[in-house]
C-alpha cells in the first residue's frame, strides 16, 4: 500500500473506455468540454461544463443548426496522457442541434463555470383545422 500521508488528494479514474481520450486535441492544446443537450416543450437547453474559465474568455458562435463554444483557460491545465505530460490552454466543442436556431431569441448565461444556452424551438408550420 502507498501511504497517503503526504500525498495530494487524487481520485483513481476508471478508464473502462479510452475512446473519450481522443476527443481532446493534444497537438493544439484543446480540451473537449462535457456538454448536455436537453429538450423541453418550447426550447432546447444546451450546457457546457467550463471550469477554470472566466466569462470574458468565452466565445459562442453559431450557424443555422450548430453552436460552437471556445474558451481560454485562466491557467494551463496539465494532464498525463499515454505516459506523456500534456498541457491544455483551451476548451472547444461544436454541437449540432436537431432543429434550426432562432438567433434573435437564443440566450446564454454563465454561472459557476457552467455555460447554459437556451435555444427556443423554431416552428415552421401551418395550422390544422379540427373537424
Amino acid at each position: 500500500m502507498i501511504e497517503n500521508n503526504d500525498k495530494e488528494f487524487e481520485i483513481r479514474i476508471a478508464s473502462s473506455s479510452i475512446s473519450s481520450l481522443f476527443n481532446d486535441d493534444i497537438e493544439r492544446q484543446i480540451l473537449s468540454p462535457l456538454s448536455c443537450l436537453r429538450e423541453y416543450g418550447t426550447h432546447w437547453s444546451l450546457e457546457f461544463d467550463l471550469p477554470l474559465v472566466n466569462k470574458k474568455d468565452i466565445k459562442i458562435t453559431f450557424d443555422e443548426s450548430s453552436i460552437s463554444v471556445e474558451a481560454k483557460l485562466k491557467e494551463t491545465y496539465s494532464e498525463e496522457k499515454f505516459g506523456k505530460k500534456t498541457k491544455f490552454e483551451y476548451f472547444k466543442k461544436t454541437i449540432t442541434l436537431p432543429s434550426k436556431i432562432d438567433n434573435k431569441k437564443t440566450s446564454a448565461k454563465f454561472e459557476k463555470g457552467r455555460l447554459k444556452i437556451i435555444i427556443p424551438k423554431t416552428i415552421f408550420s401551418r395550422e390544422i383545422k379540427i373537424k
Partner: protein
Amino acid sequence: MKISKITSQENILLVGFPSNGLVGTFTISYLIHNLDMKQIGEIDHLDIPPTLFIEDGEILSPIRVYKKNNIFVIISDLPLDPNLAHSFAESILEYCKKNDIQKIIIVSGIETINKDLKAPKIYGLVTHQSLEEILYTNQISKFLTGSIFGTDAAIITIFRKSKIPTLILYAECHPFFPDPEASIIAITTLAKILNIEVDTTDIQKKMERLRIQHRNLMEETIRALQQQQLENQPSRAPQIYR
C-alpha cells in the same frame, strides 16, 4: 419503535460509486484520503469485466475496501450497468454479514427542480425506521417524493429486505457534469453523522481541476445510468443527447 444512534463501537460501512455528478466518488475518495484509511481488501465478482488500475506501479482492483477504526468503506471506480449493480449490491450484503456491519451509509447525487445554485441541499432516505433519528438530529431533509434507478436502487432493494439499516444521502448536484462542490455538503454531513472532523479545504482548492480531470468517468457513468434508465423505462426516450 426502535431508535438507534451511531455509537463509536458499531461497525459502519460507507459506500461510494460513480453516479449523478460523481458525488459518491468524490465524497468517499476524499474521506479515504482525509482520514488516511488503509486498504484492507478488494471485491471480485465474475460479472465485473476484468479491469485493473495501476498507480505508482501498484495494481489496484476497481472495487476496494478500506478501514479505519469502526469505519469501513467500499468504493467502486467502475460505473455499474444494471446487471453489475445487482451483483455489486449482493456483494455488499455478503460483506456486511461477514464483517458484522450494523449500518450502511451510501452517498449519491440527485437533480432537483428549482435547484438553488448558491445553497445546494442534502436529502436522506432510510430503509429502516431506526435510522430516522439520524436525519432529525443532523437536520437532513427527508427524501419524500421521486424515483430512484440504478445502483442506488439495486442496493436499497436488497438492503430494505435485510436486517441491516441503510441511509442514502442525496446531495443536490448537476447530474451530467462532475460536481465536487455538491460533494462538500455530503462530506460535511457525513462528518457530522459519524462525529468526526474532516477538513474540506483540499477538495475546495481543487474543484475546478477535478471537474476537468473526471470528464471521462462522468461520460462512462452517464452511459451506464442511461442504460439503467432505459431498462427500467423501456418505452421512454432518453432526455439527454450528446
